[in-house]
């Protein structure tokens, strides 16, 4: 009985729910970025920077500062991870629509991803 029910369910159900996949991706993104930001912030509070703080206005500068162990650089790495979570959301949504064979929604996600990249590249997009 239950075997038959689960069988028919398996036939009708699509491979995975987009919602569940994205929930996992975002939970991990949030925990990872939160942990890095927290680590950097604890360091910053424990040993306030002496002299002028390092410039952290681009990804290479941030990465260089973080590798030197500069608390500001570490915080910014965490913030970059956090700010990447919406981009990951669009990418993974598109991917799971692809797996589920929802062509129209694959196209829509790809469109959003493209405009997002365009905004990032031109630096003209806004909050």
């Amino acid at each position, binding site marked *: 009985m239950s075997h038959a029910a689960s069988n028919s369910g398996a036939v009708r159900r699509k491979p995975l729910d987009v919602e569940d996949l*994205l929930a996992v991706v975002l939970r991990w993104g*949030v925990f990872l970025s939160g942990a890095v930001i927290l680590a950097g*912030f604890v360091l910053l509070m424990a040993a306030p920077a002496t002299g002028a703080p390092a410039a952290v206005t681009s990804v290479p500068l941030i990465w260089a500062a973080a590798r030197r162990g500069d608390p500001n650089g570490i915080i910014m790495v965490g*913030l970059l991870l*956090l700010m990447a979570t919406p981009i990951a959301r*669009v990418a993974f949504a598109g991917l799971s629509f692809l797996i589920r064979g929802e062509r129209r929604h694959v196209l829509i996600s790809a469109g959003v991803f493209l405009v997002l990249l365009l905004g990032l590249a031109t630096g003209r*997009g*806004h909050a």
Partner: protein
Amino acid sequence: MSIVVAAEIFAISVGSGVLGSLLGLGGGTLLVPVLTLYLGVPIGQAAGASLVSTIATSSGAASVLLKERMTNIRLGMFLNLATTAGGLTGALVAGYFSSGWIMVIFGLLLLYSALAMFQKRASELPQGVVEHPIAARLGLSGQYSDKSLGQTVDYKVAGVPTGFGVMYLAGVLSGLLGIGSGALKVLGMDVVMRLPMKVSTATSNFMIGVTAAAGVGVYLSQGKIEPATAAPVALGVLLGAMIGSRLVPVLKSSTLRRIFVPVLLLIGAQMVWKGVR
């Protein structure tokens, strides 16, 4: 920065995250005035903190709202086409407009919406919604289990073209004024597309992070994301959003509306004030 100031930023950020995740807003409304007026943070850095707050609210609340099926991903992604394209448009034309009168109009619109929201404050679920053909073709209508009502709610999506237009406008305003315009997204879904309140706020919550992400590059290069301020904001908002998103399933839609009204008044008044100044 002293530990005390950091603790204050953290505390206000927790509150901002709770409120933002309940209502589908980025939290800049509460955060920016407190940071600039009370804590003396420069306006550019406060705007950067607001961007971080929007993304933290969106991602921090998302996993719970997704699991509860409050978020309509297909609708959110479809409407994100309009908000991101609008954001680009707004940023491109930003130099050619005086933002003052736009802020006043937008502010008045929100004040008017607060009145409309107040009038339908007791409304729990939309009634008699006719599904728009585009919504049917894209499979945008959906269902979620509402714990506060103890029932599964099936809902349909109406007014797709108009709603898409409202989202484009919300995007343009974001790009033009550098604000999140989450309030306008929620109103568009609630009033025009006639979604249940919780689906409107959760789907807006999903969308605001994506719209905000487009602005990361420019904020970063302009040095508006200042680590010592942004860190307690991000941590506080993430915590607040996790708390707020767990409250959404058990709160009634009418309760969310009652919280939304004063927040709309606050955002609207801020806009008018900034516009006429």
